[in-house]
Structures are given as C-alpha cells and as structure tokens.
C-alpha cells in the first residue's frame, strides 16, 4: 500500500515537470440540448491514448505536444474528429450530434470504450433510449424493470420493481439519484419505481468489482443521473397513459449559462378505482390510492470552470380507506366511522458545485439531503346519540418509521496523463433513524390516553474517504485499484472499515480480454423487512453496539469480447460472502409490539455464487440483449430454521432476460412528414421463488389451552413457487410534427397470459381445502400517447 501511495504522489510531482506534453480538456455535450455526455470517449488517434468524460461531461487528456488528431465519440452520436496543433494546454468544448436527428437510422456513431478495454467488470450502462423503447407494464417506462432484465439481477415478486443483485437483499443496493441515496425506490407497493424516465440522463449498474468511490452497500450501485435541462432552447415532453400522465419542461433561463428541467407525474388510479370500491362496499366504504413524483433541476454556469447545480426529487404514495356505518335501535343511534391510511415517500435534494481547479484536476462539492418516511394509521370513532345527548369515543393508532440524512462530500478527478485516472474524496453523512414508533390515543367519556411507545430515534455519523486509480501497464494490462475507508459512529460505538477494491483486465487480443475483481464492502444500515408481506413497511435501522454492520467480500472473474464490432459478450463467475445480515426472528413482526427492534432480529450470514452470461447488441437497427444467470443463494442464522442453512427467498437457479428492439425505415406520411415504427420484445424466465409453507398439521402439547394444532413447517423457504415466465411486446409509432414529435405506444404485458405466482394461500374448491396461487396480471394491453415539442 505504501508503495502504491508513493507511486500516486510521484505522478503529482513528476508529470507537471514533463515539458513535452500538454493537456487538452473541456466538456462534451449534446449539440442540440447542451446535455453533458457522460462516458463519452476522447482518443488521440496516432498514439491511441484516450480518456472518457466524467459524470459532468468533463474530460482531460495529457498527450505529447504537436499536431494531434483527436476523436470524440459517444454511442448514438456522430463521431467528431479534430486536428489540433497542441503546443500548450488547450481547452476544447465539443458538441456531438445525435444520430437520432439524422435522417437515416443506419448512420450510427462508433462506440464508446469497448467492453474488453474497460477495467470495470460486472457493470452495465443502460441506455435511456432502450428504457423508453422496450414494452412496459401499464404504459409506464421503468428504469428498474429494465435493470431486472440483466443477468445477476433478479426481480422480486410479480410486477415488483425490487432488485436482488447477486444474492443480496433490496437494502444492499446503493441507488443514487444525482449522487444522493434513495431509500425506497418504489411506488404502488413496488409495481413502479420512483424514477421518471423523462427526467433521467444516464443509468449505470455495477454488481461487483466496485470502484473505491462507492461505498455503504454490499450488492450493487445504481448510479442514476438526472438531465440538466436544455441549454439551447425550450422543450417539453409528456405522456398520457392508462394510469398516469406526466409532463417535463426544460430550457434555458439564460442561454448557454443557466437551464432548468422540471418533470412531474401523477397516477389517477384513485379516480378510476373509487367508483368500483364504493360499489363493492355498498356505499359504506370508500378509498383511493395515488402516487406522484416531481423531479427538478437548475444549473448555472458561473464561468468555464465553475458550475452550480441544484436538484430535487420528491414523491409520495398515499392510500386511504374510510367506512361509515350507523345503527338505530330503541331510539339510540350509533354511528361508526373509521379512517385508515398508508403513506410513504422520499424527498431528495442536492446542491453541487463543479470546479475545474486546473486542466487536470476537477472537483465536485456536494451538500445533500435525503428523507424516507412511512406512516400507517387508523382511527375509529363511535358516536352514540339518544335523548340524553351525544357521547363519543375515539381510538387512534399511528405507526411511523423513516430515515433522514444530511450529508456533504467533496470529490476530485485527477488525470495526470492518459495512463492514470485518479479519483479521491471524503464525505460525511448524518443519519437520523426512526425505527418504528407507535402512537396510541383513546378518548372515551372522561378518559383520555395518549401514549407513544416503540424504538427510540437513533442518530449516527457515517464518514468515508477513498482513493482509486484506473491505470494502464503497457497496452495489455489495465487496473483499477483503490481503498475505501469508512467509519460509523452510533451512540458511543464506533465502527471502522477498510475496504480494498481491485479490478483488472488483460487484453488477449484487440477484441477480447479476461477480467478479475475483488471488492470488500461494508454497510452500516440494515433494512428490516417482513418476508410474508409486500407492504412498504421496511424499517431502516443502523448498526448498533448489539447489531454489527453488514460486510461482504466478492470475487469475480470473467471474459469480455466484442464480436463483429456489434456484439458485446461477457461471461462472469462470482462468489459473494455476506456477514451480519439480519432477519426478523421467528414470529416477530414490525407491527404492534413495543419491543425494541434489536430484540426482534437475528444476525447471520449468507452467500451466493453463480455464473452470468450476457450478449448485447448496441448498434444497428436491431439492438438488445440476452442474459442468463445460474446462481445459488443461501442464508444461515443461529436461531432461524434451527440453525440450518436455508435458501434465500430469491434463490433463483435459472434466470433469463431477453430485451430486443427493432427500428424500421423512416417513411413519409401523406403530409410529407417523417414517420417510423419501432417494436420491442421482452421475455423473462426465472425459477420459482422460495416461500415458507406449512404443509402438515398435528396436535401440539399440551393439548387444550392455547390451541391444539400446529402447522408443521419443514424449513424456512421450503416450498418452490411455480416458475415465472412472461413475454411482453410493444410497438411505438413515431411521427414528426410541425413542432416536435408524437409517439403512440401500444403494448401487451404478459402476451400469452401466463398465470405467474404472486402469492400462495390455502383456500377451498368444491368444499375441498386446496393450495391456491394468486396471479396478479393476465394479459394486459396498454397504450400511451407521448409527445415532444
């Protein structure tokens, strides 16, 4: 380690002293909108030295002085080649033209950095174009559901947008929206994710070989970057769908200096379902559910070297139900009113300042806030009216939980020369955990009881520092080596963690490389989740003096190859060990108990191993991928399943995801306007989820008091649900309008109406008790009207 630090420092000292080199730096952006092109590649053609644009579109390339030819490229964009006489440091901002604005689709740009050349393995960049063109559930484009189609990533139950990456739990995904963690990324009990595709610029998924800049979660990083807002002109886009509508507006406030984007979405399930619910309840009950979310971002360029961003997300899900009954007997009228509600939502804000300190050093300073809260409440009120007057009694119960973060961090990108890309930074997060508080209130005659019980709020600091270097040794070897250090201070307990990270590749030839990685991760937060229900009742809780932080070690090895310039193929094997996982004890639940959460949980371990195969076609009219995962995932807790190993709920032996889109030729309609069609197809197959079912019953002892019968459970997650498979198809019909573009999207979710399991229960059929499977969604047609202007 000491040698490594010496080497890093020597670059700072030595490189500036080399007089024959100069640095070319600047930003790469979309010509039409000014949107930064994250990951665009910059290559000096003669020497083949290159670099890529960072998350803010900044690049820096230090190369020998002289006349140089530099190629700027980005997938889906026309490549730009510049000849430059480089005799000193030179700033060059480049704007690339999207291939979508060209008349013919076959004119497609060259690719960004090829898969075999990257150090990073177990990582996929998800194209927003792909997210928008694939068939979608009920017309709602969903980033998380697109990610679920990739190998190594498993969905939860039917329709769910939850992610289970390489045997990890849903809490082990670091979901970042503009660098801010999102604690609950789902709407409608998980059927939709909170990310509005219209507001998103880029998405990257990392499943292993984590670079040192990421920390705090064990299993994945999903780095989502919002658009910045069009710098050039005012634009909008929106859609009207079956269950929701959305609208995004963006444009310059001061051209090429200040821009904004605001994007909002709301469902109208409540309006659609209310008459049905009221009818079903004979008018004595009503209820509704809706969600909304808003993304907004403003950025201002103070100078060529300084830019400020303010981004925000807020969204809520609200579910309510109320009933009213009245009875009149012997002149006494009793009126019973009840109200029930379920609410949850996130608020996320980030203020960030980009500063180019010099041609090789870029800094980003961020202040951020993130909050997730969940509340379930119910109240009952009884009013009795008779000749003597009116009496009321009231009962209220509320349950709150949540987590709130205030954080700050500063990150640097230092590019001393084309062979090194160094990133380092520090940060601190102040967490406030609200792990389940019950509020109970009774008002009856002269009796009033108002009490609050449950777990106490807990406060913690999570500090981290990291350094990583992506460097080449010759042309064949490339490594990313780093160290992430973190500390967690909760009450009087401090945990420290040093997490070495390594990934490397060796080029076998120009088209193929072998890769390997190791990553140690630590997670100071736990998510308490009941396995038997799918409500957003999950509790974020901290590591404490009794509950240790989660840790994992993951190794991966793989091969990456580009075939015929169009196909990228990767095969990977991995093994992941996880320690200090927590689960509720047998019989425990989050609800209705005044026990501290620490008394309700068990700590244990888990492990997952398997292989993943991905073939992806990124260029041409037909694009998409096929992914296959073969994996095993187990858990072991001393006090669960009597200490025996049991399969994780989402232990899925086989998992296949196929996503393909095809664009047909553009043609002219009767008015001479361009029209084109693209079609999409998604197929998924997965081994059935494991669930816990009692299949036999017998007399307990002692018989009598307390019940006589016990339902025997052979083991935790002892029963396999039927396998899951589904085909979705969709077609998008695009048409250029005088101002903008319109798209009609039609889709069929579950095209062959497979009855996939959602949950199982014991019911009756022909007076016989049977095991029944509830399936949520048969074939579901959808359509939406999308527009851009």
């Amino acid at each position, binding site marked *: 380690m000491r040698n490594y630090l010496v080497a890093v420092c020597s670059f700072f000292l030595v490189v500036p002293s080399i007089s024959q080199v100069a640095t070319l730096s600047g930003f790469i952006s979309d010509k039409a909108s000014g949107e930064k092109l994250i990951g665009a590649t910059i290559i000096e053609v003669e020497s083949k030295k290159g670099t890529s644009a960072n998350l803010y579109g900044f690049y820096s390339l230090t190369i020998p002085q002289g006349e140089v030819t530099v190629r700027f490229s980005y997938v889906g964009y026309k490549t730009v080649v510049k000849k430059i006489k480089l005799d000193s440091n030179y700033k060059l901002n480049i704007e690339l033209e999207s291939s979508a604005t060209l008349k013919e689709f076959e004119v497609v740009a060259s690719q960004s950095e090829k898969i075999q050349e990257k150090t990073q393995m177990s990582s996929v960049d998800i194209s927003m174009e792909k997210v928008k063109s694939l068939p979608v559930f009920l017309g709602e484009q969903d980033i998380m559901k697109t990610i679920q189609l990739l190998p190594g990533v498993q969905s939860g139950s039917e329709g769910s947008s939850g992610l289970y990456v390489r045997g990890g739990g849903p809490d082990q995904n670091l979901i970042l929206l503009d660098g801010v963690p999102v604690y609950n990324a789902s709407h409608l009990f998980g059927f939709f994710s909170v990310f509005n595709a219209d507001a998103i610029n880029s998405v990257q998924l990392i499943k292993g070989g984590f670079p040192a800049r990421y920390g705090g979660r064990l299993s994945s990083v999903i780095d989502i970057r919002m658009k910045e807002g069009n710098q050039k002109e005012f634009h909008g886009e929106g859609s009207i769908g079956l269950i929701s509508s959305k609208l995004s507006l963006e444009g310059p406030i001061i051209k090429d200096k200040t821009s904004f984007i605001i994007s909002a979405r709301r469902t109208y399930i409540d309006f659609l379902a209310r008459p049905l619910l009221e009818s079903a309840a004979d008018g004595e009950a009503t209820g509704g559910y809706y969600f909304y979310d808003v993304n907004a971002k403003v950025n201002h360029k103070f100078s060529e070297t300084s830019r400020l961003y303010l981004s925000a997300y807020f969204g809520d899900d609200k579910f309510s139900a109320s009933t009213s009954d009245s009875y009149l007997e012997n002149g006494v009228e009793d009126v019973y009113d009840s109200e029930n509600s379920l609410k949850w939502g996130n608020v996320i804000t980030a203020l960030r300042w980009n500063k180019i300190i010099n041609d090789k050093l870029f800094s980003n300073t961020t202040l951020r806030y993130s909050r997730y809260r969940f509340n379930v409440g119910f109240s009952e009120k009884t009013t009795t009216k008779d000749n003597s007057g009116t009496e009321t009694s009231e009962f209220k119960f509320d349950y709150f939980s949540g987590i709130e973060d205030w954080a700050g961090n500063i990150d640097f990108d230092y590019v001393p020369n084309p062979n090194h890309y160094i990133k380092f930074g520090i940060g601190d997060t102040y967490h406030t955990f609200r792990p389940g508080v019950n509020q109970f209130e009774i008002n009856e005659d002269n009796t009033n009881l108002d009490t609050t019980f449950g777990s106490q709020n807990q406060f913690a600091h999570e500090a981290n520092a990291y350094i990583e270097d992506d460097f080449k040794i010759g042309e064949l070897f490339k490594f990313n080596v780093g160290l992430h250090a973190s500390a967690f201070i909760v009450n009087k307990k401090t945990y420290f963690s040093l997490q070495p990270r390594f990934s490397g590749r060796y080029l076998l030839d120009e088209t193929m490389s072998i890769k390997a990685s190791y990553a140690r991760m630590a997670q100071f937060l736990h998510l308490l989740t009941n396995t038997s229900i799918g409500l957003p009742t999950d509790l974020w809780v901290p590591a404490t003096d009794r509950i240790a932080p989660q840790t994992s070690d993951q190794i991966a090895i793989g091969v990456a190859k580009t075939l015929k310039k169009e196909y990228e193929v990767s095969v990977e094997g991995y093994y992941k060990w996880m320690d200090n996982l927590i689960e509720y004890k047998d019989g425990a639940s989050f609800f209705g108990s005044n026990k501290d959460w620490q008394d309700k949980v068990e700590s244990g371990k888990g492990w997952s191993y398997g292989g993943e195969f991905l073939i992806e076609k990124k260029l041409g009219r037909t694009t998409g991928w096929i992914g296959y995962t073969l994996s095993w995932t187990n858990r072991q807790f001393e006090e669960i399943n009597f200490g025996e190993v049991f399969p994780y709920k989402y232990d899925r032996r086989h998992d296949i995801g196929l996503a393909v889109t095809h664009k047909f030729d553009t043609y002219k309609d009767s008015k001479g306007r361009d029209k084109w069609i693209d079609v999409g197809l998604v197929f998924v197959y997965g081994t059935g989820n494991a669930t816990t079912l009692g299949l036999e*019953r017998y007399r307990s002892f002692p018989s009598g008091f307390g019940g006589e019968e016990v339902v*025997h459970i052979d083991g935790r997650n002892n029963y396999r649900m039927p396998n899951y498979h589904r085909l979705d198809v969709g077609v998008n019909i695009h048409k250029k309008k005088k101002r903008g573009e319109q798209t009609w999207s039609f889709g069929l979710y579950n095209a062959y109406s497979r009855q996939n399991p959602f949950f199982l229960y014991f019911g009756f*059929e022909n007076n016989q008790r049977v095991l029944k499977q509830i399936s949520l969604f048969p074939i579901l047609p959808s359509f939406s009207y999308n527009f851009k202007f």
Partner: protein
Amino acid sequence: MKKIFIITLLSASFFSCEKTLELDADTKTSKLVVNSLFNEKQEWRIEVSKSLSVLDEGNLEFIDNAVVNIFDKNNNLLEQIPYSFGYYESAIGLKPIAGENYNIAVAVPDFATVTAEDFCPREVPILTVDTSSATNSFGEKELVATIRFQDPAAEDNFYGLEVDLDVFQITYNNGTGVFDTAFIDREIAYLSSANPILDNGGADSYAQTLTFNDAVINGQSSSIRVSFSPGLEGSNYFYKKTARLISYSEATYNYIKSIDAYRNAEGNPFAEPVQVFSNIEKGFGIFGGRTISGFDF
C-alpha cells in the same frame, strides 16, 4: 387495518386470477405424532396421534393401538406403556429418573415407526426469592420478585421461569364464627423482565414462561428480577405465590420456545412464520424432559 386489506384485496382482485396447485404426495401421508413432556415426579405419560395434510380437514385423531416402548440409555426395554383413557400411561408406576437418558419407539400398523431420545434434567433449586413492589410504565402497581439460583457448572442448562398465583377466597363462616379459606383458581402470572439473558424478555414485554439458557451464566449464582401484576386487590382474596424454575432438556427448551412463539404469532399476518421444534424421528411432536423446582413466597 382490516379494511385496508379488504380494499387492497378488492383492488388486486380487479386484475388477479387464481389457480389450484398440486402438493407433493409425501405431504399428504399421515405421520405419527408423539408428545410427552416427562419429569421425575410424574409417571410416564405419552400422547400418540396422527398428522394430516393441511389440505385434510379431518380430526387429528388419537391413536389407541400403538405399541409404545420406553428404553433406557442402553436400549433396555423399561416398559411397554399401555393405552389408558386417551393416553399411554405407565401401568407399573414407572417414573423417569433425573439425569437419565431415555428412548421411545412408537409403532402403529400402516405408519412408519417413530423414535426419539432425550434426558430428564436434574432439578436446579431456587435458593431465595426477594420481593418488593414497583409501578410500571403504564402507572400500574406491580410486584417484583428477584429469584436466585445456582447454575450447575458441568453441563449446559436450559430454563423456564414461571410464577403461579393460587387464588384463595376468604369468607366468614357464620356457623363456626371463623374465617374459611377456599382455593378458587390457579393463574400463571404474566412476567416482565429486562434481563438480557432472557429469550423473550424486554421492558414492558410480558410472557407466562420466561426462557433462557446458561450460555453467559454457566456455573454462576444468578438472579432474575421479574415483575408481574399482583392480581385482584381486596380483603376477600389472597394469593399464594410460587416461583417455578423449570430445568429443561435442550429439546424441551427448543420446543417450549418455539411453541410459545408460534402461539404468539398466530393470526398476525405481519409475523414471520414459526417452525415448531420436533425431535421425533420420522414423525412429529416432542419427547422431552423437564424438572421443576418450586419456591413459595
């Protein structure tokens, strides 16, 4: 909360559909169920019944034609226990002996023979019980008992702790002119204790049997402080209180803990599923030893 579920289900049923799944044949085959929690103060008594598939709504019938054999640790037959009024009870007054291991084999035509093994633990006496009174977080008066015992060092021990409340009524006998006392009922008090060695302890958390093991108190003189409601107040009643320290075998301990969690979770849709411990090979139930030490206070 119930209405939320109803409306959720209504919403779900708007889209949902259901179908019937087949279960493996193995789960439809009845197995023998043997239940016996034996102790040194009581003659052997065993309950034999049969299990049914969860799909079968029939009665969980007792079996009266079983051959029930009790063996000592060397597999010497001690007694073939005969059936008698719903149970298999020793006909010769045979009782388990503390510290001894026993095997059981139960055979019934058309069922797989089941076996089990366990031992009868030695009594761990309560040494002292100190009492005081306190007020709980709900403002209610409670009795506090500190129960002290010496954990044996040479073995792993598993315990249950209970307090029995025998309720007596005092009435004035006009005929004799003296006060008579009559036993009314026996209650098992709901105990609360924050002692961290307890499996089911916790402030403001109540259980009739507090369970724990000696992992952190092995060989030590230990005391458990419990609080409980003193029961009905009034001059017409009095309570005889008995602390009971139950020494369990490991199998019995696992069974008691799991059946307690199972009963507590019944009917709670949010609760994690509970597996009830069984040590019957090829069948279900419990064959486990326990020994009770009582202390009146």
